[in-house]
């Protein structure tokens, strides 16, 4: 139904507008500060990787990048692992309080993080998780686990119940059935869920910065270094900004075919 030329033009124009701010960031990251301040340029005339080299040589930046990837990975693994049996239970069984529990889980997606930042700080400080990657990973579970349960429940529902019954008749114990038969069937869903857990943990910065000081400071928070009394280091800020997009771009490239399927289930 979409054969005309007009839709293609609209789509192309939209994509160009969408990429423009990102392109501008890349443009600035390849120019020196004096070059940036001396005037506008639609593309870098004397491109330089100076700021990228600077970031890669500075242990603080490199450490922070590792920290960000670590807590995101821990969070994704915890969220998916814990959510799998729960999603199965919500989809396959009726139990006391199931609907209320499901809505309560979803309410945690709706809690404004700005509201709870300070109590979070108090809690994590008290239990000794302040300024650790585990603390940030655990804090992000607050919204990522409910999200994972929500998405996975949709995928579990896509597997016919007869498969569970057949496996039971064939003599599979439940854990064996779950790991050997059921998980491979929803591999797509696990991929999509992991992607969204990655995404929301990677982009969330308010809790991540509230709960850390130096050891576990996320990469995007180290960017405040570019704001200094001697003036803004626009070029450095831009280069660091570009680097924060790389992990997301890599991950989405790998899951691009699963994403459409995941969205098709109407979850997320």
């Amino acid at each position, binding site marked *: 139904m979409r054969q005309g030329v007009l839709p293609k033009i609209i789509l192309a124009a939209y994509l160009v507008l969408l990429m423009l701010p990102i392109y501008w960031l890349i443009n600035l990251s390849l120019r020196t500060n004096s070059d940036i301040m001396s005037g506008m340029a639609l593309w870098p005339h004397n491109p330089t990787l100076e700021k990228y080299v600077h970031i890669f040589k500075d242990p603080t930046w490199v450490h922070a990048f590792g920290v960000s990837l670590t807590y995101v990975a821990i969070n994704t693994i915890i969220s998916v692992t814990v959510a799998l049996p729960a999603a199965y239970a919500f989809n396959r069984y009726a139990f006391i309080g199931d609907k209320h529990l499901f809505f309560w*889980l979803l309410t945690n997606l709706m809690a404004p993080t700005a509201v709870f930042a300070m109590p979070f700080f108090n809690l994590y400080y008290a239990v000794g998780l302040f300024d650790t990657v585990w603390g940030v990973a655990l804090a992000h579970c607050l919204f990522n686990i409910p999200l994972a349960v929500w998405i996975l429940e949709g995928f579990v529902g896509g597997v016919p119940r007869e498969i569970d019954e057949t496996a039971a008749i064939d003599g599979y114990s439940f854990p064996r059935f779950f790991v050997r038969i059921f998980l491979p069937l929803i591999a797509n869903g696990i991929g999509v869920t992991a992607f969204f857990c990655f995404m929301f943990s990677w982009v969330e910065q308010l809790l991540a910065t509230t709960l850390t000081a130096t050891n576990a400071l996320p990469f995007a928070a180290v960017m405040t270094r570019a704001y200094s009394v001697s003036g803004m280091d626009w070029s450095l800020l831009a280069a660091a900004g570009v680097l924060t997009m790389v992990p997301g771009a890599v991950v989405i490239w790998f899951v691009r075919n699963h994403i459409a399927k995941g969205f098709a289930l109407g979850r997320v």
Partner: protein
Amino acid sequence: MTGKPINNRAWLFVLPVLAFVLFSSIIPVMTVVNYSIQDTMGANNFFWNGDGWFRDLLNPSTAIGARFDDALFRTLAFSLVCLMIEVPLGIAIALCIPRRGWLVGLTLVVMALPMLIPWNVVGTIWQIFTRADIGLFGAALTGLGLHYNVTQDPISAWITIVVIDVWHWTPLVILLSYAGLRAIPDAFYQAAQIDGASRWAIFFNIELPKLQKVLVIAVLLRFMQTFMIYTEPFVVTGGGPGSATTFLSIDLVKIALGQVDLGNAAAMSLVYYLITLTVCWIFFTIMTQLERRRDA
């Protein structure tokens, strides 16, 4: 939802989820509840204040009440404007994406990119992009002779925050709508063609009804996220100029951390949270109703 075996041992499957989420939710929420019903004279001496903070908050003639109403109005207006732009735009763009072909994958990847940028970096990108001296957007608008200044002109600040949100989150509506459109079988379109239905008729009679469910989800998610917006305006406008873009989250942090006015901030947090919950409960009910109707 029908015909599920009743099995209360399923709770065992849910327990780990409960443990993880409870750890991070119950104690912070109770801390806020605690502050909301107590007052302090400093030095960690708290005493019972009953519903005092709430009565102040909900009374528009008090300073905090007026401030709360202003911020609430601003936030609701912001959510509404964003939804009114993002939902129609999202559907329109989704209709432009071809159903299949090698370009589809690439298009989806490019579209998802803004959503994968840390939120404070989104703020930074636009902080740079809207500057008149080094940013393309700011320079272009100024060059056209328009009065555009994010840090001094409230209208510029508002437009900027809305544009940022549209840029950042319309892709979510597009991806959801596109998935919904793809789920429509080709046979529906063929039947419409045989009947000689116009493009508009196809949209209103086939596509829009089929999109109903994903659109409810899209509106729910977008309402939640816009209603809770914090990082982007914090980075780009800092809530200003004046209090033009001081949305509820920003105002709360100002009251709680800036003025260390814990009682007022806590009462405000809870009322704010309850509003969000109520709206989401309404959407959730609509969503489950739709699902039930589909199953029946």
